[in-house]
């Protein structure tokens, strides 16, 4: 069974602008996180962050649109879509924080000028980001903005695939955008989920996450006869155990992994490798490790990509998928040097150098606030 094919991508993360630069960087060690300083009254909060490469946190609105619009253009060019194909395509955006960074900057600026300011007066419409990306590239097909926290762009891929399978569109542009904003940064700071020592998923020294930024775009279209990555299946379920953490017994994680396998017509032993969500938080890594153990009696190789790019929240679905596919297309399974080299309390070990791999079938997992759990199965074999 083959569903939508991945035809071209665009990517900008802390590793660089452009897909190739990002993949090159995965052969090195993860970058050291910087810090974004946020002033709150008399206090300055240092937030560990991996910001967009060569896009300093100045002129917030301009950097936002420049990065987001560029990756869509890169993906369209790499897929070789014609202007007519772009016009008819769907745009399916997954994001958690939308363009709140811009709204923050406007409101903060108005207050600084001493004006009687109210938040969200320049824009209170959640669809503006997708609308702007669509207009910038002449896209007139169906437009979805999916907001399901850290699973948003993974879910966007599921709906893009369904739109194609239903015959409603020939191509869909799946976009993930997550740009640094103070509410998210301070929200995670307040929840004590930010790590001072970088992201160390499944590691005994794991202590939370580093904020990441990403703009990512993936063009998907009808299945191709010859090679390349495609979606085999996927699933999304709601875990009502808690709004901010999965059930630590792993049962709900296992449910969504099994459902994605069933949707793909596969058994666990057919999975070549797993890209874990790996937020490096105590409870979520525990739930994810337990869930994988419940499904896989013999766990295939597991990788985690957030040490390289931080947690890119709603964008992590399509961002990490592009990174994973790029590595696999070069014949390697991603490593996380210096992280979880030996099995920790969670009995997970991450590769320390990129592992040579043949084409295969891979499972990519994503979990988010609001109990939103998503699993994708992708393949570069028939």
């Amino acid at each position, binding site marked *: 069974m083959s569903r939508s094919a991945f035809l071209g991508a665009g990517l900008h993360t802390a590793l660089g602008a452009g897909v190739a630069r990002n993949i090159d960087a995965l052969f090195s060690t993860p970058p050291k996180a910087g810090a974004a300083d946020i002033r709150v009254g008399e206090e300055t909060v240092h937030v560990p962050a991996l910001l967009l490469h060569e896009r300093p946190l100045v002129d917030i609105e301009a950097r936002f649109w420049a990065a987001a619009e560029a990756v869509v253009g890169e993906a369209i060019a790499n897929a070789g879509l014609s202007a007519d194909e772009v016009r008819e395509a769907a745009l399916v955006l997954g994001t958690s924080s939308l363009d709140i960074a811009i709204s923050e900057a406007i409101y903060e600026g108005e207050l600084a000028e001493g004006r009687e300011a109210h*938040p969200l007066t320049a824009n209170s419409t*959640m*669809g503006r980001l997708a*609308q702007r990306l669509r207009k910038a590239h002449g896209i007139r097909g169906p437009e*979805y903005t*999916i907001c399901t926290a850290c699973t948003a762009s993974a879910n966007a891929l599921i709906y893009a695939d369904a739109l194609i399978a239903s015959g409603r569109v020939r191509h869909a542009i799946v976009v993930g955008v997550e740009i640094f904003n103070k509410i998210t940064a301070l929200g995670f700071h307040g929840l004590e989920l930010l790590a001072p020592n970088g992201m160390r998923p499944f590691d005994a020294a794991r202590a939370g996450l580093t904020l990441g930024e990403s703009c990512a775009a993936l063009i998907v279209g009808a299945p191709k006869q010859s090679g390349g990555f495609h979606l085999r299946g996927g699933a999304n379920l709601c875990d009502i155990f808690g709004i901010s953490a999965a059930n630590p017994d792993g049962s709900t994680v296992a449910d969504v992994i099994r459902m994605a396998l069933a949707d793909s017509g596969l058994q666990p032993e057919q999975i070549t490798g797993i890209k874990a969500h790996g937020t490096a938080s105590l409870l979520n890594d525990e739930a994810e490790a337990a869930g994988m153990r419940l499904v896989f009696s013999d766990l295939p190789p597991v990788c985690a990509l957030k040490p390289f790019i931080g947690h890119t929240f709603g964008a992590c679905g399509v961002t990490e998928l592009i990174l994973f596919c790029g590595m696999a297309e070069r014949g390697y399974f991603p490593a996380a040097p210096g992280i979880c080299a030996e099995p920790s309390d969670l009995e997970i070990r991450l590769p320390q150098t990129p592992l040579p791999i043949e084409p295969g079938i891979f499972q990519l997992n994503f979990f988010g606030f609001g109990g939103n759990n998503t699993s994708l199965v992708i393949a570069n074999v028939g």
Partner: protein
Amino acid sequence: MSDEIILRAHGDYYAPVGETPPDVRDLSKQTLGKQVRRVGRFIHLALIGAARCVGAAAPPPHTATFMSSRRGDLETNIEVLEELFARAQMPKPLSFINTVSNASCYYVARHFGLHGRSCFVTGVCFSFEMALQAALLDFEMGQVRSALVGGLDTVAAPLAIDRARLGLSPDAPVGEASHWLWLERGQAAAGDTVLETVEAFTDRAALIAWLKARDFAPETTLLAPGQFLSDADAAAIAAEISLTRTFAYRADLAYYDGQAGGALGAFKSANDLDGCTLTHINADPEGRYALFVARRVDA
């Protein structure tokens, strides 16, 4: 006879808002039979609409939850922004978590014990239509057999500022609504309302071509103009496909963004429409269109 997507139930909250958006905690407690704590009006209104839709029934645990809103939980977002930038205070952890748009889906799913798919969809003019289409796609792909689909739009005080956000005149009537549908796959019976399709169109020519190919019967087809479709365009479309009957479900509503969310429930409840088809058409300022089609099974 193949299964169809049946509108099993619908439930609505709608209220014009005077100068202050109402405190709905008591209504929420009364409707749900218990107090849901530490959530704002947006989530309370989501729960109220969903509970009115479901009534005394219990949706199966695999039921999916879809929600749409043009502006989401505006009050919580405003509160967090004001707290941080105007009062220089850290966001409260729970307020921050509730800024996540799908928090509302979570609370609905938790209240009804639902473990199925959960999705929050937004858009500028077609937020409800796209959430409904997402649900339809999941039915078509076999991912879902039961789904709650909600559309929720609220206002924020002070209303003078919120009218400006909405681009409305200072005296324009504004309201709030929480519209919910319960869709299930099954064998339709006489009087059932069946969702047939949800479509989006790049331009008017594509819309008209689709409508003409569908060849709706004028005597049994009702055109429901969406809130962003101009009266002139609605009349022109009706003329081009020879429709004369309309379904005016929005006649007396104060302004809120997602009025399309109330159309299917109104159609299901209307008298003497068995055997009729509803074609709801909406437009955006760029000349794109979205529609959904439902029919009442003849007695």
